[in-house]
Structures are given as structure tokens and as C-alpha cells.
């Protein structure tokens, strides 16, 4: 059984991970895409959170904002995930030992749980508050999402700073 560190060592030394690390422009291009895709993923999710808090798109039902924004936010998150994975592979060992990266993963896990709570607990009853006052539950989900996404950005920036 390999330890996580051994797996990281293996990943980092595969031919393609080495290629990403050593090519002149591969790494900055992937990193640039990772950062700029923030606009599609976090930028759009923020809009839904702001709607739940009645700070944006007040005239539109929550369900409409959600269904309009999600088809773009999800592929945006997909780009983040893929480029993030490549960045991780390229320097797996040092990233594994980076405490900010571990904090970032924890935040992402919490965001996943937060999204699941919304999806399974509040989304089925959305019709009841779609066009009226948003109840406390989904509003807490929105605040948690806003705070955690900000924390993910900070932890991500610090991860790169400490490598």
C-alpha cells in the first residue's frame, strides 16, 4: 500500500507532469486559466448567493436565477477542477506538504456539503419561497458559500505563494 506522499511522488515524476513543470508556458497558461475561470465559477455562484440574500436580481425568482446561472457555473467549476488537478500533479509533493493547500481542500469539502444541504434540504421546497422572502436556512447556506469561497481564494493564493 502506497502512502499519499508516495503517490504524490509518483504523480509528480510521470512524464506528463514533468512536461508541465518544465515547459516554458504550460504551467503559467494552466495557472492563468485556473485564475481566470474564477469569473465563471465563483463569479457566477456569488450571483446566486447574492440573490438568496436579496442583494442582486431581486425582481427575479430564485429558481430562475439558479437555472440561468448554473449551466455556466458548473462548466466553470469543471475548468477550475481540471486545471487545478494539472497544477497539483505538476508539483504534487510540495503541494501535499503545503498547509494552505490542505486548508483549501477542507474548505472545498465544506462547500460540497453546503451545496448538498441546499440541494437536498432546501431546493425541493423552493416553490414556497421562490418569489417571496427567502427563509433563514437557504440564507445561511448563501452566507456560508460566500465566506467559504472567499477563504478558498485566499488559501489558493497562499498555496502558490508558499510553494
Amino acid at each position: 500500500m502506497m502512502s499519499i506522499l508516495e503517490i504524490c511522488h509518483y504523480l509528480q515524476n510521470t512524464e506528463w507532469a514533468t512536461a508541465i513543470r518544465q515547459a516554458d508556458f504550460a504551467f503559467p497558461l494552466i495557472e492563468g486559466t485556473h485564475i481566470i475561470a474564477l469569473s465563471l465559477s465563483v463569479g457566477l455562484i456569488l450571483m446566486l448567493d447574492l440573490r438568496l440574500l436579496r442583494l442582486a436580481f431581486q425582481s427575479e425568482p430564485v429558481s430562475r436565477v439558479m437555472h440561468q446561472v448554473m449551466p455556466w457555473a458548473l462548466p466553470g467549476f469543471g475548468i477550475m477542477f481540471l486545471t487545478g488537478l494539472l497544477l497539483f500533479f505538476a508539483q504534487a509533493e510540495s503541494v501535499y506538504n503545503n498547509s494552505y493547500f490542505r486548508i483549501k481542500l477542507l474548505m472545498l469539502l465544506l462547500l460540497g456539503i453546503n451545496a448538498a444541504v441546499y440541494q437536498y434540504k432546501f431546493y425541493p421546497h423552493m416553490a414556497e419561497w421562490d418569489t417571496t422572502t427567502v427563509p433563514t436556512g437557504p440564507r445561511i447556506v448563501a452566507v456560508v458559500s460566500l465566506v467559504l469561497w472567499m477563504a478558498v481564494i485566499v488559501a489558493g493564493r497562499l498555496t502558490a505563494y508558499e510553494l
Partner: protein
Amino acid sequence: MNLQRLWQMSYDSKVIDVLRNSHHAIPYIQSVHLLGIALLLGSMVILNFRLLGIGLTAIRIEVIAKQVWSWGTVGLVMAVASGFFVFLPDPARYAANTSFLVKMVTLLVAVLFQYTIYRRAVKAKVAAHSEQKEVLLPLVSLFLWFGVGWMGRAIAFLG
């Protein structure tokens, strides 16, 4: 007072000195910069995709334009304000960086375009209740804003 002296004063000031010598101040400020960028570029994506007719088509242009204008401006102000505090501790490094200079020019063009020509065109469109798709206007806006973003990334790796 000339500009040179103003830079020198800011460079010598206590606040900027603390930022320059603190180990973690700059990445935290850059995080605010990134959050501002997420808001600004996210807003630009929403409005421009709507004008292109490829996204958020169930929401009226008027509503999108109004929301995006306020939140996009919040993002712009966040990005520019935090950008100043990344720049001020080390102005000589940035002044000598070609990507930074190109970024500033692109930013200026983007802001001017967005808040004059673009804004007027969207206002006219809303007033006329026009649902006709736009091509040139949103493409130029996306090109300029994403250009600013990429030039920012280039500061670190192209110089």
C-alpha cells in the same frame, strides 16, 4: 508637487513599508484583487453572454444590465483599490515590467469603452426594448476584460 515626489512619499510611508516587509500582506491583498476580478469578470460574462444570446436568456436585458452594472463596478473598485496596494510597495518593479504597462493601457481602454460606448449602446437598447442579438459590442468587451486578466498573469511570468 510632482508625480515623482508623490511616489517617493508613498514609498517611504509607514503603511507601505509595513506592507513591503510583511511576509503575508501581499498575497492577502492579492486575494481581494482576485475576488474583485471574479466579481467583475463574472459580471462581464453574464452581461455579454446575454447580449450574445447564448446565456441567461430567460432574464430581461434591462434587469441583467442593472444588476451587472452595480456588482461589476463593485468588483472593479475592489480590484483597482487592492491593485494599488500591491503596486505601491514595489513601484519600480512594476514600472519596469512591460506586461504591467500593457495591462494598465488595456485596463484604461476597457474602462473607457465599458463606461462610454458600451454603456450608451446598452441604454439605447433597453430604451428601445430591443431583444436583437449583439455581436461586436460583447466580443470587444470580453476581449478587453479578459485581456486585462491575462496581462495581469503575464506580469509574473513574461515580465
